[in-house]
């Protein structure tokens, strides 16, 4: 039985969620663990999908459309971005925004300071918006992702401060208060589809749109998961184990995609 790291497990799992010809949005920047979740794992997963079942899968990264994932930069300083070869590099970020609004994206990878029971997320402010306890970065295109992308995937470590009953500020409208509330607010199809964490995978119930435990990573118990959340998600009768990476997937990740452990470092 293959041994693997949590990052490898998540990378392989996420790669299987990417379908052939999917266009995937991957964010830029941040560092440390946040980089691994927002950039490292998504790039590795997209490349793994390309090498396997989804050769036509493409990434929009920064303002690079279809950057060459066979040569992912080893240092994420400006010149590495400038020199990264791609199929296209539109004149400004507005082109990416238009593609979002036209629903050209199939998958996006998102992380948040707060995520709630109905998949609403907050990257704007903790506490009161006018005089916040913690001012965060703002919004970027996170509202667009939940409004227009077909299958947004959240990548976050499970933590009671992040998984809250209700977010302090709705930066991105997920399933709002559940049921039809998203549609009633004026939004179309979309909103968060999966929440991939270091302990378990969640999806959202078809009817109530509540977050639902989907699978537990090998060796993780339900109680450990609940202990790391400030609300109790829906829990099915039987909880399967998160499907582990295959030896082939592990070989691709370790030998071809991230040989120097840059993407999956921490």
């Amino acid at each position, binding site marked *: 039985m293959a041994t693997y790291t949590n990052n490898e497990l998540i990378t392989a799992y996420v790669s299987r969620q990417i379908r052939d010809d999917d266009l995937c949005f991957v964010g830029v920047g941040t560092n440390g663990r946040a980089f691994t979740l927002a950039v490292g794992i998504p790039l590795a997963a997209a490349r793994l999908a390309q090498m396997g079942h989804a050769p036509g899968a493409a990434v929009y990264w920064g303002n690079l459309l279809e950057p060459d994932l066979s040569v992912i930069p080893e240092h994420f300083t400006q*010149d590495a971005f400038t020199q990264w070869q791609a199929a296209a590099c539109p004149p400004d970020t507005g082109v990416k925004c238009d593609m979002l609004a036209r629903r050209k994206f199939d998958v996006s990878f998102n992380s948040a300071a707060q995520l709630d029971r109905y998949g609403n997320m907050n990257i704007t402010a903790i506490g009161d918006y006018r005089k916040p306890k913690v001012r965060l970065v703002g919004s970027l295109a996170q509202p667009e992702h939940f409004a227009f992308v077909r299958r947004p995937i959240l990548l976050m470590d499970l933590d009671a401060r992040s998984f809250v009953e209700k977010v302090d500020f709705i930066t991105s409208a997920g399933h709002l208060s559940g049921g039809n509330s998203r549609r009633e607010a004026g939004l179309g199809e979309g909103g968060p589809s999966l929440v991939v964490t270091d302990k378990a995978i969640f999806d959202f119930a078809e009817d109530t749109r509540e977050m639902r435990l989907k699978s537990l990573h090998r060796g993780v118990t339900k109680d450990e998961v609940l202990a790391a959340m400030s609300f109790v998600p829906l829990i099915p009768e039987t909880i399967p184990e998160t499907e582990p990476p295959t030896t082939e997937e592990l070989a691709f990740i370790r030998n071809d995609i991230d040989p120097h452990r840059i993407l999956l470092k921490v």
Partner: protein
Amino acid sequence: MKEKLTTLEKALSPIVSGSTVMIGGSLLRRQPNAAVRQLIRNKVRDLTVLSWAGTTAIDLLAAADAIRRWEGIYVGLFNYGLAPNFRRAVESGRIEVRDFSETAMVARLRAAAQGMPFLPIRTLFGSDLAQVNPEQIRTFDCPFTGEKLQAIAAAEPEFTIIHGYAGDKYGNVQWPVVRDTDDMDQPMAAGAKRLIVTVEKIVSHDEIKKQPSLTYIPGNWVEAIVEVPYGAHPAACDTMYDEDDAHMRDYLARSKTADGVKAYLGEFANALPDHAAYLEKCGGLAALSALDVKGRA
């Protein structure tokens, strides 16, 4: 053509306390930091500042207590984390924020460029970004389909400051063919009322007119152009030099406290007469050239 080449001092003198200023660049690219340090020397206060993804320029202005309100999509320090001075000012209530998502901010910039009071989007239904800002984000019905849309008010700053790659004395600014295009500088320039551009270098008009399609800011739109080598330092100017990691870390360390960053500003802005002195303070062109990237023009 009209000559628009001048100094930072002259170019920025119309910007007084209480002005509304759009700041160009995105993340660590082409932050107009030389201009920002001049504004800090000028002791302007109570600015309403608009930006795309703002980093060093916005945090420096916040550190100098120059900002009353900010409007944009992001303020942080990219891979250096949150923007400590901006964060402190917002958390203390000194800076009011108006957050816009990317399609919303794009709509604001394009509306101004098109001479329209607003443009429509449909992004922010259910988002608190719309709920807290009825003054600039309003729901209305499509005149054709009747569906609900959101009108986003045009961005109409009195001044716009952009740092570019190279330009001529008439204000024509060009970008290199291969660059990092992840910004909104051209739409900002297109909608600007009074546009002040700083560039890494001034080139001849003969150079410019050979490849007119590389002119992303026509001189016709520009009020003043100023040559400031390493004008984005400590941030980067893609294709020319990278961000200054050591300087960024020092800035972050000294930004842990308000006093710490005040001392930093004293050393790197207030105590210095101009950008030339700043470059000397940073070790001079010789030292700074260590940041240059290969293929730099």
